[in-house]
């Protein structure tokens, strides 16, 4: 080992240090590029009430002015299993992997991945 080091030039050593540094940097850069673990955020009346990990299956109930909303997380998707608002639009929305399920009458908002991105491709926002 000592012989190997003795046989390298300064340039060799600098290159070696650079390669190590670049590899280490690469770990951090690729980690940033990876999608982070997603959360399911439940807001009631505009305030965050619960946060759950998307990768843990569970069923739980969320209280609201019009009654309890049953929410299910399974296979990295979320749905409203049972709602007690009048039109039950939130139930009809079914399983959602990204975006949000909203029950406006019950003031419950379930956001997946922290980003409620339901816009179609090529569209940045929708009016109406």
């Amino acid at each position, binding site marked *: 080992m000592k012989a190997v080091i003795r046989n390298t030039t300064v340039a060799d050593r600098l290159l070696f240090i650079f390669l190590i540094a*670049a590899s280490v940097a690469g770990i951090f850069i690729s980690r940033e590029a990876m999608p982070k673990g997603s959360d399911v955020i439940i807001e009631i009346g505009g305030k965050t009430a619960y946060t759950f990990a998307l990768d843990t299956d569970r069923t739980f109930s969320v209280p609201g002015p019009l009654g309890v909303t049953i929410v299910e997380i399974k296979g990295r998707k979320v749905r409203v299993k049972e709602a007690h608002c009048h*039109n039950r639009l939130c139930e009809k929305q079914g399983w959602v992997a990204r975006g949000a399920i*909203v029950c406006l009458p019950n*003031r419950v*908002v379930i956001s997946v991945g922290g*980003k409620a991105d339901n816009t*179609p491709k090529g569209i940045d926002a929708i*009016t*109406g």
Partner: protein
Amino acid sequence: MKTKVFLLFFIFLLALPLSCGKGRPSIYKKTKPFMDTLVTITVVAGSDEQANRTIDKAFSVIEQFGDKINFFSDKSELSAINRNAGATPVKVSPDTLGVIERALYISEKSNGAFDPTIGPEMNMWDFFKKIRPSDTAIKKKLSLINYRDIIVDHDRSTVLLRRKGMLMDLGGIAKGYAADLALANLKQNGIGAGIVAAAGDIRAFGLKPDGTLWNIGIKNPRQQSEADELIAKASLTNKAISTSGDYERYFIEDGRRYHHILDPKTGYPAGRCRSVTVISDSGIFADGFSTAVFVSGPEKGMELVREAGSDAVIIDKDGVIHTTPAVKGMVTFESGH
């Protein structure tokens, strides 16, 4: 000498990976519920950190404003005004005064087609439970609807509703005003491009990282399927866009559609349009204005739009589309419309 050259080269190579990737602007988007709807803020920022920090600050501005004008909260300044109707003027903060002044301006410009004193009529409807008031009840409350009975004292920053039983509802204009506040806050914090969308009230500014305009979809008022969601796409920036439609909150009874945009003169849902999208340089001529145009109908509504120097897409009750000339350069309609 060689060592020095290698040293310099080595430092250069080390600096390369550290400098690339950081600071390249990207689009970031976050959504949170406020004012009984979802507010989405999109920014072009150099990092996650900058995006989160600036978006959260803008959300905070919207939250604080929303609390002041919340019709359903006893603690809001708006509720204090409503509780003291026919009694005492209520001192309010600058933002509350600002949104009320904007509401009055639009009421006057539209000759009452938009009127924030619509509260007593709105209160009698429940679009989720499909409850509508009787014709007698509607007629009875009409006398309480008159924007001219909102008395604003600018020097004292007070607002008084002249008659007991009057109720101000700022729902038709608050989201857009909140979007304007958020927009100003984002710019103040160094964001040069983005979108603030409070439900359908949108402010777009700057350009995307690739230098292109923002694409804003306009909803189809008679959407049948997911594929049918949009009727048009507007490509623009530095504009305020607002849509009022009869498909947002409604129910159908005996073949008749009852929706939430009431005509202040009759107390019944306005029937001349299905949706109105107003595109304006200023937020003042967007939200309350889209409501006013909706209530006024395609002809009178178009006059209002022209007077304001704005643009509009009006879909009338029969589904016929009316547009201002400049819309052709901004908006492309989906096939079949």
